């Protein structure tokens, strides 16, 4: 194992110079990292193309090689069935992760409403009333906690619902709802779709590619318009709907003379309490007593995004930075909740004084790590306990090496804020966005989302795709690790408008925004569904999301959750391109084509795998331009001057 640390070219794994800086330490100290392990372990070629079926003990079977279309698994399964089944199972796993996150948020809101959570409050009452409306709950005349309880109950019921449709299906544009009903993919219940698709993909079950792929989409929609959307909305209600904040990103946000606590994972509850606890005078006093100047909280991954958007907590890095952060020797505690937490983190932490604290019953991390099962009714007490231990751990700190890199950024563009920023409190709407798409200043919209992946050069894909898109007047929104990557490389600062094309720059200048908007964590990709829906509803750009010049891109994906997000994006009408590594169904040409072409016919959107950033940009612009042509906005729009007859025809 230790040899592996020497096999990597530290300057080639990332375009972020802090990676090389920290990997020097890793090599010197012989500490393995995700980068060295990736170099040592080549991906399994059979699994990579979705050609391995290990569903039953008659196998595992692998269908690969030149004559694979004639090969069969022991049960007779074809490569098409195996690839589609594997894909559907990946989507199910991603949906389960996001939706289960949503369930926890709903349970939390229920507990807050019942007064069971110490210090638990409802921050956004306006959004509570709005979301109540989606569930058909009358908000007027109810006190906040009663309403919160009713909304939480309604949200929780969505998970166990067996028939009918999820409530949030009604938030989609009517044409899309009709399409889902026609294709039979309108999700019935969040958990039901997950369970049914697992059943459907079990050995000896569904052998029809179309049926399997529809099941994948239906399950993903159950997350996108169900569990994930519940997570986003209820988190906003509980913790506040984000508005732009200033912060900075990269390892340089760690402080040499303060206690550093890193929060990592995907949930906002405990992390927000840790931020709160760290601000208590008693904790500050303790820190000073320990010789530190204060307590510094920074984040990794999507917990970082949640804390960034609502509390301005700086992200220390994206997913691939989790071990590198520990290597600074300056982290007193790394507090993790769920998802994307490397087991290697525990090993890295062992080399330093860093306390690795895992806090979720769903993710016990580290053999010798300290696991605290947080008493969900007393999260602040748990947070105080963690902060205290971190502060006390400051005494154990050895030599530190904190890179100086830290780049200023602006984050926190919820769809509610986007409406506001385009018209102020009294004229809030998406109209200016639509107008400037129609008039061509903005060529299209792109969501650059998802992960980092050590199989490709860290940050290279995201940064190049984003830079090229904005130079081509495409307004970019980012979430998840792609958002942190964008922040690290200066793309989230408003000054970045200088690198945008003339039209986009003009819009950025008018509104005061960067050309790349940080809209949230990965579960917050549902915000993008809402944005696209509202853009359609605002008018002038077609009748459904698939009419919009919009595209989703994940240049450095790695997770099942990314596949699930892609599936609900396509199901909702937005084409998706994944970059970096190849398609997980590349073993079956039929399934590859099915995602590209048949989905395009069925959903108006396709799913493409294109490895190189430059090629991704070319394909994205092609797709955007084809939509513009279909909308007949590919030519300069004539200025319409209104005479009296036309004015009489106007509807307010």
């Amino acid at each position, binding site marked *: 194992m230790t040899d592996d640390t020497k096999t990597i070219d530290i300057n080639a794994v990332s375009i972020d110079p802090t990676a090389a800086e920290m990997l020097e330490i890793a090599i010197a100290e012989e500490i393995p990292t995700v980068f060295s392990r990736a170099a040592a372990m080549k991906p399994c070629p059979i699994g990579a193309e979705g050609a391995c079926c290990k569903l039953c003990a008659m196998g595992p079977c692998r269908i690969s090689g030149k004559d694979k279309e004639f090969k069969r698994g022991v049960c007779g399964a074809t490569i098409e069935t195996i690839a589609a089944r594997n894909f559907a199972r990946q989507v199910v796993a991603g949906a389960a992760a996001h939706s289960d996150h949503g369930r926890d948020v709903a349970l939390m809101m229920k507990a807050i409403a019942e007064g069971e959570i110490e210090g638990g409050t409802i921050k956004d009452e306006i959004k509570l009333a709005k979301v109540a409306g989606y569930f058909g709950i009358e908000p007027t005349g109810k006190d906040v906690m009663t309403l919160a309880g009713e909304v939480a109950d309604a949200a929780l019921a969505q998970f166990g619902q067996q028939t009918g449709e999820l409530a949030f299906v009604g938030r989609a544009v009517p044409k899309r709802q009709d399409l889902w009903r026609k294709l039979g993919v309108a999700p019935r219940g969040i958990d039901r779709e997950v369970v049914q698709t697992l059943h459907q993909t079990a050995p000896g079950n569904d052998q029809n590619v179309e049926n399997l792929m529809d099941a994948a989409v239906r399950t993903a929609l159950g997350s996108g318009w169900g569990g994930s959307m519940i997570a986003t909305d209820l988190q906003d209600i509980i913790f506040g709907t984000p508005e732009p904040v200033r912060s900075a990103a990269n390892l340089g946000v760690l402080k040499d003379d303060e206690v550093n606590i890193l929060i990592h994972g995907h949930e906002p509850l405990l992390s927000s309490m840790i931020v709160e606890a760290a601000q208590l005078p008693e904790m500050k006093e303790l820190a000073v007593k320990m010789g530190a100047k204060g307590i510094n909280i920074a984040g990794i991954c999507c917990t970082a995004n949640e804390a960034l958007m609502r509390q301005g907590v700086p992200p220390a890095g994206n997913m691939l930075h989790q071990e590198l952060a520990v290597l600074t020797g300056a982290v007193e505690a790394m507090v993790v909740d769920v998802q994307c937490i490397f087991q290697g983190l525990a090993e890295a932490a062992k080399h330093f004084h860093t306390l690795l604290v895992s806090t979720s019953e769903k993710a016990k991390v580290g053999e010798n790590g300290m696991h605290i099962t947080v008493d969900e009714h007393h999260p602040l007490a748990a947070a105080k306990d963690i902060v205290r231990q971190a502060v006390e751990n400051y005494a154990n700190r050895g030599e530190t090496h904190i890179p100086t890199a830290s780049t200023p950024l602006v984050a926190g563009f919820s769809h509610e804020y986007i409406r506001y920023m385009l018209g*102020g409190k009294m004229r809030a709407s998406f109209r200016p966005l639509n107008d400037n798409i129609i*008039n061509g200043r903005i060529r299209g919209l792109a969501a650059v989302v998802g992960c980092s992946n050590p199989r490709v050069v860290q940050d290279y894909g995201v940064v190049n795709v984003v830079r090229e898109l904005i130079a081509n007047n495409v307004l970019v929104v980012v979430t998840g690790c792609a958002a942190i990557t964008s922040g690290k490389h200066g793309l989230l600062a408003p000054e970045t408008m200088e690198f945008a094309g003339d039209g986009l720059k003009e819009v950025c200048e008018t*509104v*005061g925004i960067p050309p790349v908007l940080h809209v949230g964590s990965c579960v917050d990709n549902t915000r993008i569904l809402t944005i696209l829906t509202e853009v359609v509803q605002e008018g002038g750009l077609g009748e459904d999301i698939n009419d919009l010049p919009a595209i989703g891109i994940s240049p450095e994906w790695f997770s099942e959750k990314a596949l699930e997000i892609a599936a609900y994006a396509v199901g909702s009408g937005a084409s998706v391109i994944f970059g970096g590594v190849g398609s997980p169904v590349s073993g079956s040409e039929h399934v590859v084509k099915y995602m590209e072409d048949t989905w395009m016919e069925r959903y108006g959107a396709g799913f493409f795998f294109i490895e190189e950033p430059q090629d991704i940009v070319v394909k994205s612009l092609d797709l955007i331009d084809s939509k513009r042509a279909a909308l007949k906005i590919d030519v300069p729009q004539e200025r319409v*001057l209104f005479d009296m007859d036309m004015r*009489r025809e106007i509807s307010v």
Partner: protein
Amino acid sequence: MSRIIASAAIRGAHTWVERAEKKLAELKESVGADHAVEFPNTAYYLPVIYGLTGEKVEKLSDMDKVLSYARDLLPEVPSEKLWLPYLGPTLDSGVATLFAEECLEAMKYIDGSPVDGIWLGAADDVIMRARGVEFVDGSAPGFAAVVGAAPDNATAVKLAREMQEKMLYVFMGGHDGGTSFAEQLDAEGVQLGWDTRLVPFGTEVSSQIYSLGFATRAAMAFGGVQPGDFERILKYNKMRIFAFVLAMGEVTDEWYATAAGAISYGFPTISTSDIPQILPTGVCTYEHVVSNVSCDELVQRAIEVRGLKIKVAEVPVPVSYGPAFEGERVRKEDTFVEAGGQKTTAFEWVRMLDATEVTDNKIEVVGPEIDELEEGARVPLAIVVDIAGRKMQQDFESVIERQFHHLINFAEGVLHMGQRDLIWLRISKAAKDKGFKFHHLGDILHAKLLDEFDAIVDKVQVTVYTDEAKVEEMLAKARLSYAHRDERMAGLTDDTVDVFYSCTLCQSFAPTHICVVTPERLGLCGAYNWLDAKASNELNPAGPNAPIEKGELINASTGEWAGVNSFIAEKSGGAVQQMTCYSLMENPMTSCGCFMAIIALLPMCNGVMIVNREYAGMTPSGMKFSTLAGMVGGGVQAPGFMGIGRGYIASKKFMSAEGGLARIVWMPKELKDAMASSLAPRIEELGIPNFLDMIADESVGESEDAVLEFLTAQGHPALTMDPLF
């Protein structure tokens, strides 16, 4: 570089709010917090604040809440680096500015008066409603809010004339280094005021709040938008009020702040100075700020930026021409020649002739031309217009003839009053000096009639007679024709025609209202009668006047027809299912906002009062016209209250469902006097010769009790009629 604009506007907004807070504190100290605050004669309180927040500011202390709301809207000035989005906050600061400015202007009415010299201050509801008609029918396509001053007086006059010719209202407020556009015009002897569409509000830019107050009230009065529904009020303005700001001079922080407020209404700013631009669209229909525009291009550019199309027919006359000159006066001492006005014989007459008898564009002056006359001359005058057209009808003669008044009046330096053989014409010395001749009267009518009545009129020839013998000869013929028309009109009743006409002319402003125009009930704005609507339908079959087949008569006394009901139900999108033509109480006709008068129930008197919009006093209903108007407008049926055209009062069908004329128990004296002659035949039919004297007016009192006492003493018939409800 809109960050510069955002920063300036936000700084300016802070200044405005601080200024208003300071002034409020001072005034509370000097006159007390309970001191009343109001703009003259309006039902909309401080209209911008009322419209956008629903708050009724009636006394000084009511401003506390408004200004604290304004303060809450004030954002931080954007930072130099890593700035947060500023467009939304800048628009908020614009709204905060408007609240502060409206408070400041209202406070001026307490410790002085903004009405001073040329400055007019707030526009009351009468002006708003009367001028509203022009905005509705397109004769005023929009308004320009002019801030600052032109580089010199001559340029100011040129710009003003250009806007007048384009039919725009020009609202002036704000100075540039002590000079203002309005003062420049005044110095050059240009007539200012609502009549010439050149309206000076005040020297400070804050007086432009009256422009926005006008626009805000339009949304409530005509659009039926509820106070406090800021989103719809602002959208209504963006979509329907075609206004823009012309900034001339150094753009200060305070100007920027005010402009930011205007942008929320969808009103862009076009500046002569070289300031940053905001070109991307969205809050306004097109650009938001366009700068460095030369005075030569200013008006045309502004019109394009606002997205406005103004149709101006070229009229070959040597003076300016446009509706803005309709209200201009030609004083006796400025007159070169006059005709009519009881001093000489003068008349105008349209006659329909066969195409073979009309030579298009043949314009002849029979008798002396202007240049053959002495200054101060009085001449006999006949304007005879011969029209031929395949779709021309005898009925349209009067419709076309009635256009002469405004068509001739539109010429700068020409005054026209009256109609038929009661006209009065003056041509000013200035117009004569510019080369205006009698011949040009013909040029105007030829050009405009062919333009406006193109579907009806194919050929127009005009003969202007100034030769006395010829004038008398033609007058005899014209009088025969007038008599013939009157006979025809008398025979034209609701019962003798099969179709009525809808009028949705005002749907650009009042999207939910539909007038039904019948021979015996003209449109409530008074501007369109059944023949006008018929002609309009010929002109433009898909236009605002559609024929309504009466269909089966449901109730003769209320005037309800099946065809009318189904038409109204369809066109109102089901909002109004049934509508009567002659009833106040049962499914009455809806109103837009430009009615000439309002009928309102007086329950104790068992009758109704009628108040004309010019009457500013209190009425026995306990409400002034302006307040009543708020209950009637916006396309809703309000039994017991109804907007009408004055002419309807003299109709045989007037409130026939409720017993007709005898129900009138109160009218302002000026309305009684104005209606006396046309009501005379109705009163004769009623058989109560002194009925007009039995109708109470303001001299009797403003309370219903006083009116009742008067009626009882007079033995007014309403008291013994069936109960109204």
